[in-house]
């Protein structure tokens, strides 16, 4: 392990994971406030939707990078993995909520868009796939399901599971 890696790992041990939840929540509130106060321009709904979606996507990629970083470069950020994953889910959830409640908001249109537009179908499928992961990420679920099942489910996302079914 070189000095840079050691430095990162040492610094990471001093940062409590709850900071990630707090920063994410504060940022989301800040974005909504900006949208409401004109800081996102004359068309804030679209701007807010994009900002939430893009940040969620980036965090998702970051969360997925943690295991390969650990294996390949010995950079240990594993203790942040759940916080990053759940914060990513919060952004994605808010992105969907803005789309449903502020952007489209007409029930028949929501369904029509999900069915008709491939990029929305994919986004919706992605969200549905994230829900069980978010729901089973708490300690209680992990304990109750037993290491094997929960780990396999979570591993499916991060690509660790070989072939990855919950079996």
């Amino acid at each position, binding site marked *: 392990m070189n000095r840079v890696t050691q430095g990162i790992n040492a610094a990471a041990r001093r940062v409590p994971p709850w900071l990630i939840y707090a920063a994410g929540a504060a940022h989301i509130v800040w974005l909504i406030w900006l949208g*409401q106060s004109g800081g996102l*321009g004359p*068309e804030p*709904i679209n701007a807010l939707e994009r900002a939430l979606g893009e940040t969620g996507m980036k965090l998702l990629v970051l969360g997925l990078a943690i295991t390969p970083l650990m294996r390949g470069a010995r950079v240990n950020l594993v203790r942040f993995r759940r916080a990053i994953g759940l914060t990513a889910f919060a952004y994605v959830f808010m992105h969907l909520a803005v789309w449903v409640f502020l952007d489209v908001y007409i029930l028949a249109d929501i369904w029509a868009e999900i069915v008709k*537009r491939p990029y929305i179908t994919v986004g919706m499928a992605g969200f549905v796939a994230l829900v069980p992961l978010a729901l089973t990420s708490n300690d209680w679920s992990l304990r109750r399901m037993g290491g094997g099942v929960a780990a396999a489910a979570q591993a499916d996302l991060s690509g660790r599971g070989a072939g990855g079914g919950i079996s």
Partner: protein
Amino acid sequence: MAYRWKNELTRADVTPEAHWMSRRAVMAGAAGLGLIGAGGGAARAETLEPNSFEDLTSYNNFYEFGFDKGDPKRYAGAMTTSPWKIEIDGLVERPGSYDLTEILAAMTVEERIYRFRCVETWAAVVPWNGFELADLLNWAGVKPEARYVGFETLYRPKEMRGQSSRSIDWPYREGLRLDEAMHPLTLMATGLYGKPMPNQNGAPIRLVVPWKYGFKSIKSIVRITLSDMQPETTWNALQPEEYGFYANVNPEVSHPRWSQARERAIGGGLFAAKQKTLMFNGYEKEVAGLYEGMDLRANY
């Protein structure tokens, strides 16, 4: 001929005089164009309140300066707009490269408050200042065999940073059928809110075709070409399935990636509701005749 199109009622009819200067509210009558008094159906009387100057000048699509809606405001200041020449060529009686001041001296500038509908589903109401394109074309003299008008935007990568991106085949080009170009609603706009056209909105002179999606209303025009063949237009060449030559606002014909049935007025904040998009953007009475017998689904 200036003043060929009028809102049915004046601002003074809607709002007490003390208010109308500030609110700039007008009634957008569907009548006008000699339809007044033709005895036809009830004119639609709807209050049109223009968006603020700030909204209209900070939320723009002008890819010559970048893809972000805020880029034109940020970077369009680099564009030199004076002196400005417009090349008028092709099937015209008096082709030439004309100085904009010479053209303006021959034109009558008036205010036109139009709805504006972007193909991306956002919408605005804009108080333009300008003259009818028909006046300019008549001034240059249209040859009888001319059928179409093509337009080109300035190409000057040193001042237009977005033009260094190869994603679009610059210069931006647009076109109209001659009858569309000669229609009294078709405007060459030189200003906004009584001020000279801001650079980000297409200074010093741009086209405004209010019944078509915004991308038809080409900005910062340096060339106008009359021809007998339909000119190639930028978006149509780039994505023919998504952007047609006509690009008339039509709530019935979806863009492949989104519905065009509704639109959202900019400036309404986080909880702005969408409104129904009107056929030909609300100018159906004025322009539907241009497309009689045409399949608008095929000619989108």
